């Protein structure tokens, strides 16, 4: 990692304040325009025909009955798509994605790989007609055996999904290994010797469920194909450029002929940066010559968009009696879903990286099963691997008779330590965070009742840099238009405007901040990887520096002096005043320079495309109190405190919101959320009633503690904040359950049934009721 020291400490004028968000009024009055709010004249509605089988060969598709329905304008199948013009596209950080897989996931050509896999699409005058017609598309299948459990899928003789596959490359490429899996191995030291040198060794097996991002807005797109063969797409996405690039490849078009207009987005969490409906709607629009809108039902979202991996894992960790970690051996099977590319790399990398362990081996597999193709979900892979490691760490601390925070402190990596991937740890407050947890009044507060317990957990995540573009335009009245290509999922127009105001030395109220479409701004990677406030902010600060330099030139022109004599006070005083170095009384304000742009050569604007590398990592910790009902197994969260180091909190309220939102998603993983497939391999709980996400009633207030260890890789010290909060909660809950009722949970979710089974097992009672 390139750790160029970018951070310049200064007194903040705008950063750290909590202004009200400007898109707030639009959102509370219902005026904000989301994907489904697009209504074009003469628009048609599309509906997808989906496979009811988890694995089958498509023998034939008969569209005649569907076409005969009055109001139906077109039906397409996989055969209508052109050959791909690009087999593999870059996905940042050295990763790449197989376009063939993405295209086949949008619409199956020969074989369906999961319940809900698209096989055809219909366009009609209204959505009801489209739905009726979709039901009349006749698909003849040859049903194939299927496999949905990762353990089964790696066995000899398992059902093979793809005879030939390109191994997945999420972050790091995997090597093709078993018939259904890519493999990633990481090792350092001598693990065998490490375990010999250890006094205490804990070995456990784990499973976690497939879980969904659960954004409240489903996938929606509207496509128009005009007479000049240009495609315009209004869609709800975390990354307009990614949608454009995927469409160009799948539709075999040149990039400049596609314009993607990102709408307000109703949540994403990693699940909305790829195409599902867009290629289908585009082709239907081409075929019919009319705009086509397509929206997924909730059941379609759950069945056919990318959830996060369920896993099976074996963990073995050993330490000395004094708590010094000696060796760790991890065997990880991560679900990839129907195509390669699950989060095995970040899952493996984040499993242990917060601890100094001299001898480590991680053997990870990206395993294909007959479930939808997995998508990243907020710190992808890390929540699963954190759960399995942090519960074993807790057990080791217990066996050493040590306080769990002291145990973690003893082994915490600090700046300069080398991670298992050979990357040095940049400055980050690992020790400070663990000390903050120990010092917090929550840590020592009385629990006040039976069956109550307290647990802690500590987590690590990398974050991402990648490409961001921005434009700054100075108006004659001294106000500023800021345009970026970064989708705003949570208020980043504000956190970016705040950085622009800080960097330019102008009032926040003078900045107008907007998200541009792909025709109007330079390439920008998706709003993923906690990168928007960090990386797009970085680009903005660089563009602001160019703006101030250009303004200095104008001032020099007006003063008829050399530009070297003009100074700007933005960095010192936070206000952009231009001063004559030789005559400090000669000053000119930002607004005055703006007013005189015309006479000095015309408008001033700057764009910048950045690819910052100093992401600076993210760490988080939790303290969680639970009460377990021993009769029902239900776990109630009583109190929760989340700690996170964000480098510099641009807008502390938003940071707290990210932490609270991430924690509650983590609590959903911990307690309720899971995909249930029935014997036929069909998703049995494809609704928000049965896929049980936390409600307001399930939770207490979530207290937050924000720590700020500046990230040297960002001029303002910012690190990404959006992902790591989801990582520690499941382990914190599991450790709290142990302390409440004495059972160590080894699976997610820790639903009432799972907890009851564990309690029965502890008491030596046979499970009288079979709970899956």
């Amino acid at each position, binding site marked *: 990692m390139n750790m160029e020291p970018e951070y310049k400490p200064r007194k903040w004028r705008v950063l750290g304040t909590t202004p009200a968000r400007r898109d*707030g009024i639009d959102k*509370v009055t219902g005026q904000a325009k989301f994907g489904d709010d697009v209504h074009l004249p003469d628009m048609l509605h599309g509906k997808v025909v989906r496979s009811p089988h988890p694995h089958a060969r498509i023998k034939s598709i008969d569209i005649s009955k569907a076409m005969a329905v009055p109001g139906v304008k077109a039906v397409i199948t996989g055969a209508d798509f052109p050959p791909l013009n690009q087999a593999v596209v870059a996905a940042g950080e050295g990763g790449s994605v197989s376009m063939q897989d993405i295209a086949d996931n949008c619409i199956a050509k020969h074989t369906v790989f999961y319940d809900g896999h698209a096989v055809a699409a219909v366009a009609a005058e209204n959505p009801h007609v489209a739905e009726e017609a979709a039901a009349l598309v006749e698909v003849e299948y040859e049903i194939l055996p299927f496999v949905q459990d990762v353990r089964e899928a790696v066995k000899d003789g398992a059902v093979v999904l793809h005879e030939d596959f390109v191994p997945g490359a999420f972050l790091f490429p995997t090597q093709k290994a078993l018939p259904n899996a890519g493999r990633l191995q990481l090792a350092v030291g001598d693990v065998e010797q490490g375990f010999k040198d250890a006094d205490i060794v804990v070995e456990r097996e784990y499973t976690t469920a497939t879980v969904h991002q659960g*954004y*409240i*807005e489903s996938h929606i797109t509207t496509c128009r194909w005009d007479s000049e063969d240009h495609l315009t797409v209004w869609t709800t996405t975390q990354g307009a450029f990614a949608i454009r690039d995927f469409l160009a490849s799948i539709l075999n078009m040149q990039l400049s002929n596609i314009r993607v207009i990102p709408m307000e987005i109703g949540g994403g969490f990693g699940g909305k940066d790829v195409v599902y409906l867009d290629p289908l709607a585009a082709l239907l629009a081409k075929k019919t010559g009319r705009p086509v809108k397509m929206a997924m039902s909730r059941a379609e979202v759950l069945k056919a968009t990318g959830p996060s991996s369920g896993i099976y894992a074996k963990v073995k960790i050993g330490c000395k009696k004094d708590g010094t970690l000696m060796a760790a051996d991890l065997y990880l099977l991560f679900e990839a879903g129907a195509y390669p590319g699950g989060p095995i790399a970040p899952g493996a990398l984040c499993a242990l990286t917060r601890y100094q362990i001299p001898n480590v081996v991680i053997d990870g597999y990206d395993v294909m099963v007959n479930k939808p193709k997995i998508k990243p979900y907020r710190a992808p892979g890390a929540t699963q691997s954190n759960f399995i490691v942090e519960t074993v760490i807790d057990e080791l601390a217990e066996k050493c008779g040590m306080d769990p925070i002291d145990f973690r402190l003893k082994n915490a990596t600090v700046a300069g330590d080398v991670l298992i991937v050979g990357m040095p740890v940049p400055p980050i407050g690992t020790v400070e965070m663990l000390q903050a947890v120990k010092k917090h009044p929550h840590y020592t507060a009385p629990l006040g009742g039976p069956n109550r317990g307290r647990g802690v957990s500590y987590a690590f995540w990398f974050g991402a840099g990648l490409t961001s573009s921005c434009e700054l335009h100075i108006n004659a009245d001294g106000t500023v238009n800021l345009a970026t290509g970064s989708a705003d999922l949570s*208020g980043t127009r504000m956190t970016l405007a705040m950085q622009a105001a800080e960097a330019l030395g102008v009032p926040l109220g003078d900045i107008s901040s907007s998200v541009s479409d792909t025709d109007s701004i330079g390439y920008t990677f998706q709003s993923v990887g906690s990168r928007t406030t960090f990386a797009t902010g970085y680009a903005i600060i660089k563009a602001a520096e160019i703006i101030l330099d250009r303004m200095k030139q104008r001032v020099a022109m007006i003063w008829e002096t050399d530009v070297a004599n003009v100074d700007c006070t933005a960095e010192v005083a936070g206000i952009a005043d231009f001063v004559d170095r030789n005559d400090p009384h000669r000053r000119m304000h930002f607004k005055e320079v703006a007013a005189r742009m015309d006479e000095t050569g015309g408008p001033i604007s700057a764009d910048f495309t950045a690819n910052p590398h100093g992401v600076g990592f993210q760490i988080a910790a939790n303290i969680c109190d639970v009460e377990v009902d021993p009769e029902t197994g239900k776990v109630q969260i009583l109190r929760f405190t989340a700690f996170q180091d964000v480098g510099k909190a641009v807008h502390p309220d938003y940071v707290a919101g990210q932490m609270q939102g991430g924690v509650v*998603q983590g609590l959903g993983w911990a307690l309720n959320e899971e995909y249930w497939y029935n014997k036929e391999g069909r998703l049995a709980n494809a609704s928000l009633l049965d896929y049980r996400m936390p409600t307001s009633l399930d939770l207490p207030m979530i207290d937050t503690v924000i720590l700020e260890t500046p990230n040297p890789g960002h001029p303002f010290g910012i690190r990404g904040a959006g992902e790591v909060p989801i990582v520690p909660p499941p382990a914190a809950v599991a450790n709290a359950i142990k302390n409440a009722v004495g059972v160590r949970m080894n699976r997610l979710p820790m639903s009432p049934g799972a907890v009851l089974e564990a309690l029965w097992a502890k008491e030596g009672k046979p499970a009288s009721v079979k709970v899956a």
Partner: protein
Amino acid sequence: MAKKTHVETTLNGDAREFLVEPRQSLLETLRDVLQLTGTKEGCNDGNCGACSVLMDGVLVNSCCVLGVEAQGRTVETIEGMGTTDNLHPLQQAFIEETGMQCGICTPGFLIASKALLQKTPNPTEDEVRLWLAGNLCRCTGYDKLVRAVLKASKAMEAA
């Protein structure tokens, strides 16, 4: 295509007439027939509360009501709650307390909260949590949302 029915209703205080197919939900009627897109869809099967509206003052999921059922009734949607210049105290509190991230759930939460405060002007935190349990938010973790409702109730009491 199904035959349409003529419906007369009072929508956000104004008399409105429209034609709607009997199978169209009130949610679809509001959004697609009347172009009032402030009411949002999250699930279309009664499980998320994003589509909350008031019908004769009663909180309903508009995806589970038919458009034809609006005949002779009053319907209140987010568009009738407050304007940019004159926000409802709940809307004000949601902005001040950052009671939203992506904002897709926000109209539904506001309508549901309004119904709560009509019934229980001074709710406890538990009462707010219980009442809002039919509205899902995936972004906020509910903390700031609940605080916003409690704050608005105080503001409305003081007013």
